[in-house]
């Protein structure tokens, strides 16, 4: 539906570009129509994708919607047994993948493997679709996304057409992009941001430039070459981009107007440096979850500038907030009893709105009777409605009956001039039940002792929050989409104690 509109509105514009190859909106529409026929004929219940970004991704995404089948992008970094377990949950399915991967893959019966290149070729060479008979059941499943499973077995988040359409219509104006607009998409297709970027760009009429495997230098080169105007990165990517620009005062990307980020906590030092290196860019911080069809709050470009130039500490701190709720979204902070708390008080972030799915396959909806989805993220709102994240509820350290938020302690450690990165976790402690431990990465050429950092925390926070153990590391473990793997940090530090 979204795609048919785009093809009518700006059919000859380039929709998707990958290396030297591209598809116009007309070509994408025709290819999706042909692929939809193939999907229907396959008798599969799901269309799955195990691949990096390519032109086949948008074709398969829109063709799945057209055929009324859920699209299920899988994480290609998972191991064989992990993938087999996920595939068993979407059987029978058609699996699109590249030829090399296909030959190494052991797929259960019922999974039809289809090579990406031949799929794309067949879709592109087909004649025009005979009708625009796309399905529009708003309750049908559009996308199933397996959560990253940092805390356990991956859950299959259910996004129905009504959630995605609500998100797109609520946040994007049809055809709003200019002729020269181009969005650089470097997040993988199995991430909700990768899916949202395709949908938003197609509806806006913006050219999508795909980067299949992120590294900072390729990102910079491609952004310059393609005169990219819009880009989304996760915080670890932005930190790497800044490192790659070491020694330069300007990034020299004059076309880049909008640089948005999300998917993890952005350290103050990184965003401040980025704003200096990209003086022409408008920065937007987006917070959202897979279960909420992507973005639910944004810290917009004006917020960034106001905060960065403010003398008021409370206003300046908003630079590390995730901004305010979208107009179509409500946010409340709930206490353990599920009641809303006052501004400034910490609790669980709860969200309500039409784009919020809050549903997992097999588990059903987690929305309460009033429609609130508990995100399991901890945080607080300030008096003006700016949302501050404080890690996952499940990461809260319970020390002697007191609840400690790792995020609060990490923020203080990160403000120390020698600290590049920090992770705070709870480790088993005989006296307190749980004790506070920190893994710290020092900046190159900087020194700070264990005692100095403990004193630093004690000066800024109460003594119960002072880490009893600090381990210095060369780097912290992140997954490929920028999520800190706390479980690994915890195991590492607990092993050292």
């Amino acid at each position, binding site marked *: 539906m979204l795609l048919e509109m785009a093809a009518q*509105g700006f059919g000859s514009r380039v929709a998707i570009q990958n290396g030297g190859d591209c598809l116009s909106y007309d070509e994408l529409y025709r290819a999706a129509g042909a692929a939809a026929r193939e999907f229907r004929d396959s008798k599969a219940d799901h269309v799955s994708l195990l691949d990096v970004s390519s032109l086949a991704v948008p074709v398969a995404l829109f063709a799945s919607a057209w055929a009324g089948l859920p699209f299920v992008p899988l994480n290609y970094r998972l191991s064989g047994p992990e993938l087999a377990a996920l595939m068993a949950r979407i059987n029978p399915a058609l699996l699109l993948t590249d030829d090399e991967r296909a030959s190494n893959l052991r797929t259960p019966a019922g999974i039809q493997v289809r090579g990406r290149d031949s799929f794309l070729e067949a879709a592109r060479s087909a004649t025009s679709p005979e009708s625009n008979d796309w399905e529009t059941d708003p309750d049908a499943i559009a996308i199933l996304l397996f959560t990253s499973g940092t805390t356990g077995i991956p859950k299959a988040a259910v996004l129905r057409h009504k959630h995605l359409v609500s998100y797109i219509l609520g946040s994007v104006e049809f055809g709003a992009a200019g002729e020269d607009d181009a969005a650089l998409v470097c997040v993988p297709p199995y991430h909700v941001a990768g899916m949202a970027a395709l949908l938003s760009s197609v509806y806006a009429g913006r050219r999508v430039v795909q980067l299949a495997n992120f590294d900072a230098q390729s990102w910079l080169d491609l952004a310059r070459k393609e005169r990219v105007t*819009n880009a989304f990165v996760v915080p670890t990517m932005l930190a790497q981009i800044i490192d790659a620009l070491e020694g330069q005062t300007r990034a020299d990307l004059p076309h880049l107007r909008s640089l*948005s980020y999300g998917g993890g906590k952005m350290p103050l030092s990184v965003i401040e440096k980025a704003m200096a290196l990209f003086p022409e860019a408008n920065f937007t911080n987006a917070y959202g979850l897979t279960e909420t069809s992507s973005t639910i709050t944004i810290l917009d470009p004006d917020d960034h500038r106001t905060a960065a130039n403010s003398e008021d500490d409370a206003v300046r701190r908003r630079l590390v907030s995730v901004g305010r709720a979208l107009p179509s979204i409500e946010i409340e902070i709930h206490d353990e009893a599920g009641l809303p708390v006052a501004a400034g008080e910490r609790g669980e972030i709860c969200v309500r709105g039409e784009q919020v799915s809050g549903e997992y396959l097999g588990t059903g909806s987690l929305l309460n009777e009033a429609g609130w989805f508990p995100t399991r993220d901890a945080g607080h709102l300030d008096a003006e409605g700016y949302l501050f994240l404080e890690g996952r509820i499940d990461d809260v350290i319970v020390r002697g009956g007191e609840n400690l938020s790792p995020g609060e302690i990490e923020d203080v450690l990160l403000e120390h001039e020698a600290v590049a990165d920090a992770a705070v976790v709870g480790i088993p402690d005989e006296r307190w039940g749980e004790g506070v431990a920190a893994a710290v990465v020092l900046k190159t050429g900087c020194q700070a002792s264990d005692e100095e950092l403990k004193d630093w925390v004690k000066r800024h926070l109460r003594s119960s929050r002072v880490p009893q153990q600090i381990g210095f590391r060369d780097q912290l473990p992140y997954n490929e989409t920028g999520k800190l793997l706390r479980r690994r940090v915890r195991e590492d530090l607990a092993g050292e104690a």
Partner: protein
Amino acid sequence: MAQLKPGSRLKSAVCDTEVMLIAAPGGDVDVTCGGAALVGIADEPPAGATLASDAADGTQLGKRYINEAGDLELLVTKPGKGSLASDGTPLTVKGAKPLPASD
């Protein structure tokens, strides 16, 4: 017109306009385009219907049209020559609320 639910696709009986229902009030809804009642996307338009000259301002692709009460909302998925109305009152284009790109 019959009861409609969000997601339903309808088309004009007298021009090229196609719409998708975004929001609908409960009960029966009367929506016309070019002066004639909308029909289901797969239905044959009634023979002989013609575009009314007082309802020919056209529809714009990608625009959302709402009624005065705000409980009826249609998205134009294909533009045409007729104009949309409900209970005899023309629908208006819903104002855009620009947001910065976040993805």
